[in-house]
């Protein structure tokens, strides 16, 4: 399975405030991602991590460059096609307040499958499987407010996987978690990556998270400055 390209983005740029003081949030960046990768996007605050993830996820329009997802150039898709493309191909986990508060954990995950018009039996089976994987089978009917931050992020991961996407984009998924919850979330993501070959691209500036990635892309001022295996920092 490995070796198949899922993301191939060339020369992508995003400029804000073009009329006044231009901010090159993403500056002529190339990203190549293969199936089964577990890659961290790191860099200081304001370096362009969120912007890059939004471009790759088709949430925002690049000012230049092309972004091929499974061979399809998403920069050429119309607004409604892009929404549909996201629904079927990309899983998202955001930093916080990921879940719809009026829906239970189960409904949050099912929502995606409803939008995909998945039949009920398939939905039920997938919900069961996903909640087993995130180890929250006992919280199916809890509302987000009744879950801890770590539990909410795990449900968000399950929701991102509900549509069986090509890859999952996670923007600082552990930023609001204590270290134990963060480690737990990483365990689950890693296991999904190893056992199910789920492709993850996540941004972070948490050293303990960076250590567990298999590839680290560093972004500074909208440019990629390094793209390597993680550097283990041992306490001195």
């Amino acid at each position, binding site marked *: 399975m490995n070796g198949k390209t899922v993301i191939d983005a060339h020369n992508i740029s995003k400029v804000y405030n073009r009329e006044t003081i231009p901010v090159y949030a993403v500056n002529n960046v190339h990203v190549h991602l293969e199936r089964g990768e577990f890659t961290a996007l790191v860099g200081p605050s304001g370096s362009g991590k969120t912007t890059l993830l939004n471009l790759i996820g088709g949430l*925002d329009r690049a000012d230049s460059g092309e972004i091929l997802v499974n061979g399809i150039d998403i920069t050429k898709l119309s607004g409604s096609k892009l*929404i*549909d493309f996201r629904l079927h191909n990309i899983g998202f986990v955001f930093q916080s*307040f990921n879940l719809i*508060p009026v*829906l239970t954990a189960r409904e949050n995950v*099912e*929502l995606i499958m409803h*939008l995909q018009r998945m039949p009920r039996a398939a939905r039920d089976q997938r919900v069961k499987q996903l909640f087993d994987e995130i180890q929250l089978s006992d919280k199916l009917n809890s509302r987000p407010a009744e879950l801890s931050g770590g539990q909410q992020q795990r449900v968000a991961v399950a929701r991102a996987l509900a549509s069986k996407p090509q890859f999952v984009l996670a923007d600082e998924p552990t930023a609001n978690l204590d270290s134990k919850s963060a480690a737990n979330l990483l365990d689950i993501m890693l296991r999904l990556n190893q056992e199910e070959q789920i492709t993850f691209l996540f941004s972070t500036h948490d050293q303990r998270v960076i250590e567990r990635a298999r590839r680290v892309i560093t972004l500074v001022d909208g440019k990629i400055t390094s793209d390597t295996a993680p550097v283990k920092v041992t306490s001195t």
Partner: protein
Amino acid sequence: MTMLMRMAWRNIWRNKGRSLVIMASIALGLMAGISILALYKGMIHAKVRTVIDRESGHIQLHHPHFRDDQHPAYTIADTLALNQIRQQPGVQAAAARVVTAGMLTTTSGSAGVNIYGIDPADEQAISKLDKKIREGSYFDTQTRHPIVIGKKLADKMKLKLKSKVVLTFVDTANTMVAAAFRVVAIYESDNAPFDERTVYLLRAQLSGLLSTGRQIHELAVILHRDEELDATASAFSAMFPDLRVETWKEISPETDLMVSTTDQYSYIILVIIMLALAFGIVNTMLMAILERTREIGMLVALGMNKLRLFLLILYETIFLTLLGSPVALICSFLLIRYFNRHGLDLSGFGQEMMKQFGFQNLVYPEFPWDKLAGLVMIVAATAILSGLLPALRALNLKPTEALRK
């Protein structure tokens, strides 16, 4: 229930207080609207009943020229027509009248009046004049030349029981005739202008003065059932090709017009009430969307398309608008039923004004079943229209910007 409906339903309860206030105001507005419709319906119904049962009857027959030019020579042969009409199926009562226009003069002044020569017994079944007598007795036989006048005229001309008046008019030969009468009774109907210009004499006396003999001018007919109006009118037209046959709608076109225009007014009032409420609904929904900017951005990011987002907001608006409606319907139904039984006294709004327009002070509102479909449509349209602006606002949110909130 679809996922979207479930979300919409739960969303409206996120801010319970705000939603309840909106629902309550919609319910109150709807109740006000329905009550106005019911009041109108009751008033119009009473007005139509007054016209039919106490003024003109269902159908009248005249000489073809009489209604255009009230000359006493345009007559109908009494015995012939009256007896034939009374034998018609569906006819409850019929009365013959001699009618002319003239001048009523007293020591203090004069006034133009319509003079009706009637058979007191027959008239009881048509205009129920005996029931309207406020003072005196209905054509008592002691007085030789009795006249019954309306209260409004009596007040204006300062007439009392036993006052003497002189009537002047022209007879069939265009000769001026004047005769003196004594007030034996003063009547009062719900229609003050009518009371001011209508006086009653005995038919034989007026016929004598006009020299119309046994001829009459007007035949008024009351039917057993309103539904037979048009059929009976056509039957009469066929029976009496030489006479003009008219229904109450033609005799009192202003009443017929009132029936149709109040329907339009009712809808206009409803639409105005709903427009006012729409402002509240739109505001509430805009506020709700503002509060949920991030959440909506996330839904779009996850792949909720514009149609579904539009439906979600529309469902929310519709739930918000329609939830109060059943309560409003039930409450107004009960309210209307109460006042339908006990009557609603509107004399507080000015007894004189109501009479001036020919309405009774005691109104019996009727639940506007006939307008229920229109009502539901207006409320539904309000819900949908109020949802459009907030839905468009939501559709215009950019997911990346919304997510940064």
